[in-house]
């Protein structure tokens, strides 16, 4: 789960990482009130889960409460890469002498947390990695050794931070960020920029924060950060129903069991000349209710002209799936053609159940490729 800037900063603060004083605002009036409380210049920042806010006009400096209200009016409702701005973070403006970059990524390849630190902050880190790789210090931490103070020294000296006070502050932040990363079950924590003010104070001016969905059960406070409004409405419905769903742009609705097979199903529809309307994974279980829920989500998309339902049973049993399809047909009054392919555990029983039901909009095909071809024809 990705967190908004203000949420990540809240966690940073809990772990002792210095951030600026700020308030959340949903309306221009709230923005004004926040600016009054904070005092002086403030920055009005769109809270959306996408990059490039600055370029899109989502981050503005305001001189006073009046100005903050005006800037809030400008920014609220903006569409930034498909994300409509509904929340603002009003934060005390900082003077910036230097911009650094600090992050920890859960490195799946190395199977270790990966620190990245550079004094060349404030830009995309990929740019630094490409144009000035020597300026970027990369350092893995062993999960059993855990964080040790030498890690901070390698990063700080390695990146060439020379001021002793900066060294000390940044070393402390490095340790705090690691604790935050581990204790919040983060997959990514990024501070860009990590600024040094003209007074020599180091603080986090932005936050990028991704938390492991599988660990949310033990972080109820973080789980509450979930931003229901921020997702595509269909994806939000899917999440509510516990269905893994990604909206695509075509006309063939796709439902498979397992991420790999579902992805492959999307590919095969493309190979068969069709355009997938979505990616939808029934997951491991695949009981009747799950099937009904998934079909409800998929058919809410008006672009869908046919559905390819591709099941290879393992832990999922095909007879259960077949019953789910029949139940969905009845409960959702579905008329869109559904092409079904069943294989694996109890496939024969499943096919028999569907054959006996003899629904007019139900097509059972023997292979994945046949089924894809039929679904593409029916969507045309």
């Amino acid at each position: 789960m990705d967190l908004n800037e203000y949420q990540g900063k809240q966690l940073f603060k809990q772990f002792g990482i210095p951030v600026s004083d700020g308030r959340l605002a949903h309306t221009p009036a709230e923005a004004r009130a926040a600016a009054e409380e904070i005092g002086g210049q403030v920055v009005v920042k769109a809270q959306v889960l996408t990059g490039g806010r600055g370029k899109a006009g989502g981050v503005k400096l305001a001189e006073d409460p009046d100005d903050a209200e005006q800037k809030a009016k400008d920014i609220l409702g903006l569409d930034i890469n498909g994300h409509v701005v509904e929340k603002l973070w009003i934060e005390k403006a900082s003077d910036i002498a230097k911009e650094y970059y600090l992050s920890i990524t859960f490195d799946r390849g190395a199977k270790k947390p990966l620190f990245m630190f550079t004094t060349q902050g404030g830009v995309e880190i990929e740019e630094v990695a490409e144009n000035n790789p020597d300026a970027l210090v990369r350092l893995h931490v062993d999960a059993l050794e855990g964080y040790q103070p030498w890690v901070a020294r390698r990063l700080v000296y390695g990146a060439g931070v020379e001021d002793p006070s900066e060294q000390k502050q940044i070393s402390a932040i490095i340790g705090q960020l690691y604790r935050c990363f581990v204790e919040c079950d983060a997959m990514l924590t990024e501070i860009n920029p990590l600024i040094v003010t003209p007074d020599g104070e180091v603080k986090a001016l932005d936050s990028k924060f991704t938390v492991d969905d599988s660990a949310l059960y033990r972080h109820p406070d973080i789980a509450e950060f979930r931003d229901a409004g921020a997702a595509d409405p269909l994806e939000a419905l899917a999440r509510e129903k516990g269905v893994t769903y990604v909206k695509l742009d075509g006309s063939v609705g796709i439902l498979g069991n397992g991420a790999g097979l579902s992805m492959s199903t999307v590919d095969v529809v493309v190979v068969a000349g069709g355009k997938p309307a979505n990616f939808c994974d029934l997951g491991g279980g695949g009981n009747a209710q799950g099937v009904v829920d998934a079909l409800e989500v998929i058919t809410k998309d008006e672009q869908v002209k046919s559905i390819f339902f591709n099941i290879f049973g393992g832990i999922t049993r095909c007879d259960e799936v077949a019953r789910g399809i029949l139940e969905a047909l009845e409960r959702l009054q579905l008329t869109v053609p559904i092409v079904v392919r069943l294989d694996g555990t109890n496939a024969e029983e499943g096919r028999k159940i569907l054959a006996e039901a003899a629904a007019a909009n139900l097509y059972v095909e023997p292979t994945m490729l046949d089924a894809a071809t039929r679904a593409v024809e029916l969507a045309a």
Partner: protein
Amino acid sequence: MAIIVDNDTKLVVSGLTGSEGRFHGLRNRAYGTNLVAGVTPGKGGQDVEGVPVFNTVSDAVGEAGANTSMVFVPARFAPDAIYEAVDAGITTVICITEHIPAHEMLRVYTYVRTKGVTLIGPNCPGVLSPGKANVGIIPAEVFKPGSIGLVSRSGTLTYQIGNELAQRGLGNSTIVGIGGDPVVGSSFIDVLEKFEADEETTTVVLVGEIGGDEEEKAATWISDHMSKPVFSYIAGFSAPPGKTMGHAGAIISGSSGTAVAKKEALEAVGVKVGTTPTEVAELVIAAAG
């Protein structure tokens, strides 16, 4: 021979008395797997259709000779079950459980690696050596014995490929689902290494998917160490960048981790890559024929 599970496998199932553990454990036994024990704390002394249940894995090792553990307990108990198995002397652990927090698996993984234990999963369908043993949830009836090693990050996709091969008369030495979580106990390379060493395996099919760089690393390893022919299928050619497709593995960030990049990396080292499950099966047939 085969790899990871075979006729020498003596299986203990952590969670055998749960409904899923029971269903699949007994199904594995019905296939011919030597299921020697179950473990459920507090249920020691009971049995599940004749399979003795112990309170601890240590008892299952000591009293029933278990050497392989299948973990089928809920996510919040699974890391403990893996540690328990490893410290009880189990040498192969296959963890089916999904949704284990990544940081916890990271510690488990790092610990297990120091012990020389083979860990498969978590969030994986298990391992099947057709005609010998099945440990996990792979529908064994789809596969038949043969000489093709199959390794995959995905469960159902593996069945699909196996099915396509079986329909063309080809069988498998072992099918390994390594799982799609951020941290899995065995990588493609770990399994390729075993297939390369396995006398029964003549050909390997590697089933990858978008996200990460495991397929690219596997390509390098294949180029450096593999003498047996490798074929591959990659899922997700049509996936849009920046979206998570189901499990944590299936996300493309920027230009890295795309199906096309993986295909190119594999083809560059002589691996033939199919763009549909059917095509990869046909490539294997063509090479065999």
